[in-house]
């Protein structure tokens, strides 16, 4: 398996740990770290996985500039079923545009949603939902909220907490093997059951997570709390 990590120098909010975790889970696989001034590997090759994580708002603009020439190629790879994971505000760039204080930033337009960003109002929250029969947990910490336009390609239904925005009952986006979620945690580490299933699917064989029992114990403790009706979830 070859995984391309896009612009990891920009990653924030613990998202680099998703990469380190995948390396631990798949120690024999090749991970290509693409720099902002590099031509992405996916433009001329077909990686098995593409990942991108959280970044600052100015770096979002740089990433949009860097990827805009390759929108058709990205669409082609999505259609071919290449696995892709976008976490936190890396999801923003997949939509049509970001609105911030009267300014509009055009994004890649791979999905039909827009983002409204308020730099003086940071949204923090927790989310619980179910995907493929697996409970998904995670945290949100972001300036922008996504608003689907005609898009209904959801990642999962939210059972507690907030979805894409306070009025949206679902979280993230999902098309073929592309998954985009605003959840951090890091997402892959705090969702061991999902990660095990997802990586096994990519590998085509069962994957064992490092210290799997300990990962599941921490996950179950969080799940218990998130499901506790006495625990308020934003």
């Amino acid at each position, binding site marked *: 398996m070859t995984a391309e990590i896009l612009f990891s*120098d*920009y990653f924030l909010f613990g998202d680099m740990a998703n990469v380190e975790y995948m390396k631990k889970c798949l120690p024999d696989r090749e991970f290509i770290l693409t720099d902002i001034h590099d031509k992405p590997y996916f433009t001329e090759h077909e990686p098995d996985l593409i990942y991108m994580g959280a970044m600052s708002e100015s770096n979002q603009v740089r990433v949009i500039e860097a990827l805009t020439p390759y929108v058709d190629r990205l669409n082609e790879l999505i259609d071919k079923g290449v696995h892709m994971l976008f976490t936190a505000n890396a999801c923003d760039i997949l939509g049509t545009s970001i609105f911030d204080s009267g300014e509009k930033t055009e994004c890649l337009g791979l999905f039909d949603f827009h983002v409204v960003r308020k730099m003086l109002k*940071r949204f*923090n929250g927790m989310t619980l939902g179910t995907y493929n029969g697996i409970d998904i947990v995670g945290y949100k910490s972001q300036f922008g909220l996504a608003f689907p336009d005609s898009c209904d390609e959801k990642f999962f239904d939210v059972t507690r907490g907030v979805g894409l925005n306070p009025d949206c009952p679902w979280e993230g986006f999902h098309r073929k093997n592309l998954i985009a979620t605003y959840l951090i945690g890091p997402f892959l580490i705090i969702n061991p059951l999902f990660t095990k299933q997802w990586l096994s699917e990519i590998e085509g064989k069962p994957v064992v997570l490092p210290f799997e029992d300990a*990962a599941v114990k921490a996950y179950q403790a969080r799940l218990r709390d998130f499901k506790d009706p006495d625990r308020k979830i934003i």
Partner: protein
Amino acid sequence: MFRFLIAFLLGKLAKAALKLMGRRATHFPGKLAVKICPDFLRYVGKPGKIICVTGTNGKTSTCNMIEDALRQDGVKVLDNSYGSNTLAGISATLIDGVNLFNKPKYETMVLEVDERSSLHIYKYITPDYFICTNLFRDSLMRNAHTEYIFKMINDYLPAESTLILNGDDIISSRLGEGKNKNRVFFSVDKLPGEETENTNIINDGRTCPVCGAKMIYTFKRYHHIGQAHCSHCSLESPASDYEVTTADYKNRTVTVRYHGAEHSFPLISDTIFNIYNEVAVVALLTEYGYDDQKIAAFLGKLHITATRYSEMKVGDVNVICTMLKGFNPIACSRNCHTAKITKGKKAVFLMVDDTNHEREDCENVAWYYEADLEYLNDDSIVRIYAAGPRADDMKYRLLLAGVPEEKIITGKNEMDTVSKVSLDGIDTLMIFFDMFRFDILEKQIKPAIAKKSAAAGQNGGETA
């Protein structure tokens, strides 16, 4: 103005009433005043000289040192050391700082200012001197990232202020660029025997804040602290005006080069963070007008505040308690590094779980994966205790950091965990506690640990 008068009088009344009730009244009177008069800070009387200190780490220690130094010289100093560093706390401080006729009772004000509160403070308060100790990644829930905090400060910083900035910080050293005429920089040269690390998880200066290209470090102390230049544009670390050239840990002196000469001062603390704080204070006091001998005399009588750092002896074991802000991966990383390099066998007790935020219905453990907990994977660290509702997450983080499972002991809260603490086979127990856990540390944890010694028939004594 009428609103201000009402706000001022009610603020004064609230202050008096709360003090009668034995409270410090460092927040509510200010909150009330600002609620009534949103631009309360514009009208309230202010001392003639104003020093503001901000930054991710070290602002409280730096403020305390400045206040102590000025007071040693007989200066009447108003400070917010007992209050919050946000708009309400600073307003409450200023209510205290004036008489009933709104005339200042103090000559100088030293304010610790929360970075995110810059927009509320600098609109109405123009510091004569402004220190930024550093800008690092802090609570992701509150401060997001350094670019955000930099902009928050820079957009509101008055152009008239003299800025005293960390020249080893490629992020905060750009404050006031092209706006403030007076900017001086402090730095710490590579110290003799100092190990330089390039393995930190976080480097907020990995890419250029101007053009986004890779930064090249000629010297990296830790994270993004060091000397750097951009691989693409002209951005580079500024030349230093106040540079620590050596630190003599044996003779307890630190040498600072400025104004073309080397000056020796007492070394207040061995930790590099505090050496940065100390040189920032030397720069401030020099710019303020003091000569090196006077500054050396001030510094000779200073120490780091006990609420942040304390030591006690329990039998033969040193118990060192260090406060670190939860959600702050840099503070956690630096303290884990200190744990690694401290001599002897050690145990580490982590009280950094975000219990306080859980009460506020929100939590986030992502920062565990930005802190260099790998430092705790060391033969000299024989046990690690993790306390709190997310102790299992901390355990998993430590396992991924390479710490053997048998060294990790967890508990659902601090008291549950402290009951499992053993002082056997260690020279030092290092307790890292979140700022919101200070009370429980003092009232429950320290006594419980002292009892372990009593149970073993030993005596304990505390020093701060």
